[in-house]
């Protein structure tokens, strides 16, 4: 999409009109949760956060793949990073994520671990060919957005006869997590801004349960200010009418059925499994694991890795923040013991985490 076209979705006059309309239509608080780290950042970066009416209560949900990567999963890849034969390949986001004892991939590199930041999972194929005596282990973190390209990489590796590539699969799926959130009676959310990138793969249908089963609204939304304002305006309108809907506002990118080819590749290689979410805990059926017929590529099998829930981080409220029960500034560690330079909890770890966004962008 051209920048000129995108600029139309940032039109300040139109945004002002929508903000004014929203102000007039709001009768009481609207608690909305955005389920994508990129939305969190977009809301702050555009300045929208400082302009939204006070009655709009903005909650950042479990939509940042780094934030929800469980500490046991982090420790697993940090343990592997020191292995003699292993070259870890990862997206840059994971480089500073802390494991136990303050370990992270940056420090592992300083201690001699071989870690390569890649821009695409397909870069691992070249790495594997260039290092035939080593094992390339790609850290498979992310939602439905990234899982298909990693599945595609494994398919290509098989086609090319590459046998020294492994994937440490920690993929998670979004709709299952939303259902778990809505099933928790302590959580009070009026509507969801649904992730644009994930929805481009899975489409709209997997979210229909939000309205049908729970009577809440949800809108698949793009990342420009007008995208976000339009979705909020709609949800206010529906709530005022006592209605609940799930709709797709991001039609320039997201088809109703998503990307069936990507889904086919994803489920050819992966199958659903239970997954641990950092700050939340076990959500049945919310993860992906490598199917037995692809086990040559499975780093968990190769190295006998199991993921287990440990004790919660003392004082850290990230679980409540990811569930929309608390705001980042309500955590006693926020900005004190927990900062982007020294993150304690998951929401401060990632550049797209809600605590990191509050810390980085919030003026007062």
């Amino acid at each position: 999409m051209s920048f000129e076209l995108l600029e139309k979705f940032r039109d300040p006059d139109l945004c002002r009109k929508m903000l004014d309309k929203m102000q007039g239509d709001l009768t009481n608080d609207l608690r909305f949760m955005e389920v994508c780290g990129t939305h969190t950042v977009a809301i702050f970066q555009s300045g929208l956060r400082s302009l939204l009416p006070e009655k709009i209560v903005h909650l950042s949900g479990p939509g940042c793949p780094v934030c929800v990567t469980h500490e046991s999963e982090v420790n697993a890849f940090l343990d592997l990073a020191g292995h003699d034969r292993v070259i870890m390949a990862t997206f840059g986001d994971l480089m500073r994520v802390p494991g136990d004892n303050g370990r992270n991939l940056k420090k592992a590199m300083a201690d001699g671990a071989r870690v390569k930041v890649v821009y695409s999972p397909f870069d691992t194929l070249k790495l594997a060919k260039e290092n035939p005596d080593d094992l390339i282990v790609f850290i498979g973190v992310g939602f439905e957005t990234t899982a298909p390209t990693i599945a595609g990489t494994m398919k290509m590796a098989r086609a090319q006869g590459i046998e020294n590539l492994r994937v440490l699969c920690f993929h998670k799926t979004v709709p299952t997590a939303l259902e778990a959130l809505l099933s928790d009676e302590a959580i009070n959310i009026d509507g969801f801004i649904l992730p644009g990138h994930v929805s481009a793969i899975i489409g709209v249908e997997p979210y229909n349960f939000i309205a049908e089963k729970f009577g809440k609204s949800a809108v698949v939304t793009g990342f420009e200010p007008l995208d976000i304002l339009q979705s909020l305006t709609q949800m206010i309108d529906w709530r005022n009418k006592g209605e609940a809907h799930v709709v797709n506002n991001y039609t320039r990118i997201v088809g109703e059925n998503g990307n069936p080819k990507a889904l086919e590749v994803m489920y050819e290689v992966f199958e659903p499994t239970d997954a641990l979410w950092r700050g939340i805990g076990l959500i049945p059926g919310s993860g992906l694991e490598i199917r037995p017929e692809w086990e040559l590529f499975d780093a968990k099998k190769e190295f006998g890795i199991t993921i287990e829930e440990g004790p919660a981080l003392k004082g850290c409220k990230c679980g409540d923040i990811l569930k929309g029960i608390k705001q980042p500034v309500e955590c006693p560690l926020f900005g004190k013991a927990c900062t982007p330079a020294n993150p304690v909890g998951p929401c401060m770890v990632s550049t797209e985490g809600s605590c990191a966004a509050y810390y980085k962008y919030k003026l007062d």
Partner: protein
Amino acid sequence: MSDKVLLDYGSGGRASQRLISELFLKYLGNDELNRLNDAAELAMSGRLAMSTDSFVVDPIFFPGGNIGSLAVHGTVNDVAMMGAIPRHITCAYIIEEGLPMDDLEQIVAAMGKAAEEAGVTVVSGDTKVVPKGAVDKIFINTTGIGDIIVDPAPSGDAAKPGDAVLISGTVGDHGLTILGTREGLDFEARVESDSASLNHLLIKLVEGLPEVHVLRDPTRGGLATTLNEITSSSNVCCELIESDLPIKAEVKGGCSILGLDPLYLANEGKFLCILPQEHADKALEIMRADPLGAGACQIGTMTDANPGKVVLVTPLGGKRLLGMLEGEQLPRIC
């Protein structure tokens, strides 16, 4: 000479002498350097500005320059930001055994050309060759010295509320070029480093204006980090107008793909000028008259609202913090 740099060339013996005379003096030679004394003899007095910098850029060749020209531009600019005329530089080369001699020649030639264009002489140098793997191809340190011609000299702690914040052109070009070349990323539109010596333009600027509070080149950490350093030192607030920030569409596009913020990317041919608002138009006129300042514009104002902070005013009229970079920028997952 061999077609590759050998450890012998750093021995201090005949091989070293050949490298110095047949390569370094060929491109960098002048009356002072040619004497090959242990130190240079300089006739300088008064208030002097001196700066040193080490260049370890990867890749060593990139669109818009190479590590040799960059090593001159970086140090010349650092000296010039003090309101000084850079006069002389020194250079120290640490070379990895096995570097192709052609590469070294291109680098030294680029250094000589850059020094000539900047009007500085290379008066002292050093060459070391280290075993393969001890450095990444080549590292260069340069030190520069110059005469300060402005009183008081511009300084990072001298910004005041009411000052205009000017930038000499687009930001992020160098940083994205280096990253793109390093990773072999093929951007749709070509980006090129802005690496250049700014001293001639800066001299025109300081000579043409009665008062310049801060001059600073936003290199590593980019515009955002540099402005944070200034607001912190000066205890003022910088309000940046986002829609006024000059960023090339191709840089915006490349950053958008990689999940990077151009405001944190390095620049090697741009400078910030902070001065009383009443002199801003004159400053922009001087900057725009020079090709290196053709894209100059005002991007913000210093205020006393949030001392020590940089605040970005978005096109919607919202305000948010623009903080200092924590570590290096890394590409994101999605």
